[in-house]
């Protein structure tokens, strides 16, 4: 199977504070990897390094064979193929749902306005919000906004999707609708890296679960192995708290 994402000895520090201390990971095409771990373990920072929203201080990241960490790489081109979904949705508040989705494909000349509009409706249908096309983000619930955010990320037809705690800012009863969309995406073969606190989702959907602590990957494995038979003391402690 083809390797989509390769992370080689990744380091990141803010001044003296070391956030990531040598992360090694490879993710295959179509694989769903969930990253779990306590707050401050560097999960989100790690994810944000993958599309260079954070600059790294050491190590290399390759996505689709392109070196993200190389200064000379055209990061904008690579980002077109990496969708990202944020904890706080970050929908463009001055644009309608439809225009949120159409902005990037039209502006980056990937599609004509008509094609992008058609795509927007397809995607909205996929996330179950085709009737909300002309709404502004603030008129939607958190769960709906996050589904739109997923549709927006999908509009560029990325082949890797990054999710940064996509359900952490949601009311409990809205978590399900977002996870359902993500589940559908996973079963459609999308390569996904998901930072999450939803252990149920990780157990059901992930091909592999990674436990991070103190800026390193402490333990990884198939969900059923990691959840039912964790090896490291720290993992056991963490799982005891959240399960």
């Amino acid at each position: 199977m083809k390797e989509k994402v390769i992370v080689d000895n990744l380091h990141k520090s803010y001044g003296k504070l070391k956030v990531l201390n040598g992360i090694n990971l490879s993710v295959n095409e179509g694989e769903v990897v969930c990253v779990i771990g306590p707050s401050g373990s560097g999960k989100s920072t790690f994810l944000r390094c993958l599309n260079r929203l954070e600059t790294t201080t050491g190590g290399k990241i390759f996505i689709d064979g392109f070196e993200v960490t190389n200064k000379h790489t055209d990061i904008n081109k690579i980002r077109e193929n990496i969708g990202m979904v944020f904890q706080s949705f970050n929908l463009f508040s001055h644009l309608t749902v439809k225009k949120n989705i159409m902005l990037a494909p039209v502006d980056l000349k990937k599609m004509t306005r008509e094609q992008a509009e058609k795509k927007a409706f397809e995607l909205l249908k996929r996330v179950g919000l085709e009737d909300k096309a002309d709404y502004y983000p603030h008129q939607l619930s958190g769960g709906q906004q996050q589904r739109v955010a997923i549709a927006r990320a999908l509009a560029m037809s990325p082949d890797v999707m990054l999710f940064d705690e996509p359900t952490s800012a949601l009311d409990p009863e809205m978590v399900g609708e977002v996870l359902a969309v993500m589940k559908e995406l996973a079963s459609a073969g999308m390569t996904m890296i998901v930072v999450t606190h939803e252990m149920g989702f990780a157990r059901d959907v992930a091909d592999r679960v990674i436990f991070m602590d103190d800026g390193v990957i402490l333990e990884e494995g198939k969900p059923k192995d990691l959840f039912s038979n964790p090896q490291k003391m720290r993992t056991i402690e963490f799982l005891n708290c959240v399960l």
Partner: protein
Amino acid sequence: MDFVRVFNQATPLLIQGVKMTIFISVVSLLIGMALGLFACLMGLSNSKILRCISGVYVWVIRGTPMIVQAFIVYFGFPQLIQLFNPSFRLDAYTAGVVTLSLNAGAYLSEIFRGGISAVNKGQVEAARSLGLNQTKTMIKVVLPQAFKVALPSMVNQFIITIKDTSILSVIGLADLVNKAKVYVGKSYQFFATYIMVALYYLAVISILMLFSRYLEKKINYERKSNS
């Protein structure tokens, strides 16, 4: 004091002045907006030199009175140029527009900067993560939202600039105040004339305020419709 007579005599002159005041204000504000946006973006750029230029510009303009700036532009600057080109002349209109534009630009630059920094950082990250470069992110995502935040302060600056045109009457710009002075010089009708001048300013600025209120409502309405 015959108010009606003063009104009839002064009106043609004052209307000329109002036209000049509006004309100078509009031109200066258009240039000032471009200048302000430019200075603001320079101030936010990665280049230390650009940031420095923008900072010095805003600092100097904000730190000196406009009347001094007008004297420097109108009297001082031509004297300097004439050392090299003795035939150089600068008329009061050009000097007035230059002074007002520089002035409005500096203040608007700060207003824009405030508007831009009020836009949530997540908006930028979302745009960048989709592959939009810095410039496109600025134009498509940040500026439209910053504009909404900055609109009330912008209108405030517009009002200040309109009123500041009156300061330029000291360099001989034939604005509303200047025309009023001319009329008062002949007629000695201080009270009636200057009340009329005040009412003209009030009318012009009220129109601007109504327009901005309409604009703010429209922006808000667009975002609140469909619900």
